[in-house]
């Protein structure tokens, strides 16, 4: 399989609203090498250590549903 993983930070200097958006977009593009269709699922996880200063700090989280 071939995976293209894109980290996109939309730091567009001419649009301050987008520039200051604290979001990095991860794009997964998975292709099969034999050209035949396959089912693929992706597990993508981000560590809660990203939002704390020290690993022993507590993190509060919620589960959101987006779209349909």
């Amino acid at each position, binding site marked *: 399989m071939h*995976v293209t993983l894109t980290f996109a930070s*939309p*730091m567009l200097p001419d649009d301050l609203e987008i520039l*200051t958006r604290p979001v990095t977009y991860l794009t997964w593009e998975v292709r099969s*090498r034999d050209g035949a269709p396959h089912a693929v699922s*992706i597990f993508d996880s981000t*560590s809660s250590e990203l939002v704390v200063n020290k690993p022993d700090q507590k993190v509060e989280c919620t589960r959101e549903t987006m779209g349909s």
Partner: protein
Amino acid sequence: MRWGQRRIGPLDGLPVERVIPGVYAVSGFCSALGGVVATVYTGSGNPTTGTGLELDAIAAAVIGGTLLTGGRRLPGGNPARNLDFRYDPIGARFRRPFELVVVADCRRNVASRFHPPPALPYPGSPARRRPLTPRDPHESQTHSLPDARLLPDGVRRFRRRSPAFRPPATPLVAHDPNFSIWSEADHLTDDRDAALDARGAFAGLPHPGGWQGVSIDGIEPKEVPALPQTGLQVTPTRSIYEFENESCM
């Protein structure tokens, strides 16, 4: 306030509308206090007492801890540091402006005058990999820099000579010094013990048929093999990793 711009502060969540009147109020209060002190000192009121004292005031502010270049510094800090006029690049270092990528390549350009360009850090023979789909010719160059028009002539010539580009660090998440993750490894999957806070930050598992999948970041879960990296492209706003294995999916 980031970059000293009044418009960006509110977007960062800073209460600019509250801070600015407060700054003026404090400044006015200090001026009034200074007037009272001057009146007590001279025993009389004179509206021109402060004339000519501007430089003294600036010197006092700097020695007291205010950075002329902006930013935060506590009063009573190291006076020598307070007089440090150099531009503090820490903010710039952790963002991803165009110059940084260009600088990185210039450094490699200088190094390559003394050493042969490093071999591609990616395993696997390109000949063995057949193209998946007809591709855009620009895409076939999996290592590339941002738009050539942004680069000085020397770098552009160098780039034509050597298409492989291995940045000293690849930006993954690049916003501000507090929210910034870079990969310094040859492969994204090598970054197991990243010194930065990237440890365990991302785990990806494209898995065909069950969980015998592959791990993109090679960290979690540990029993899953890392997916071999075949290419990297860094543009001003994106870092594009290519992975491929022999999995028959």
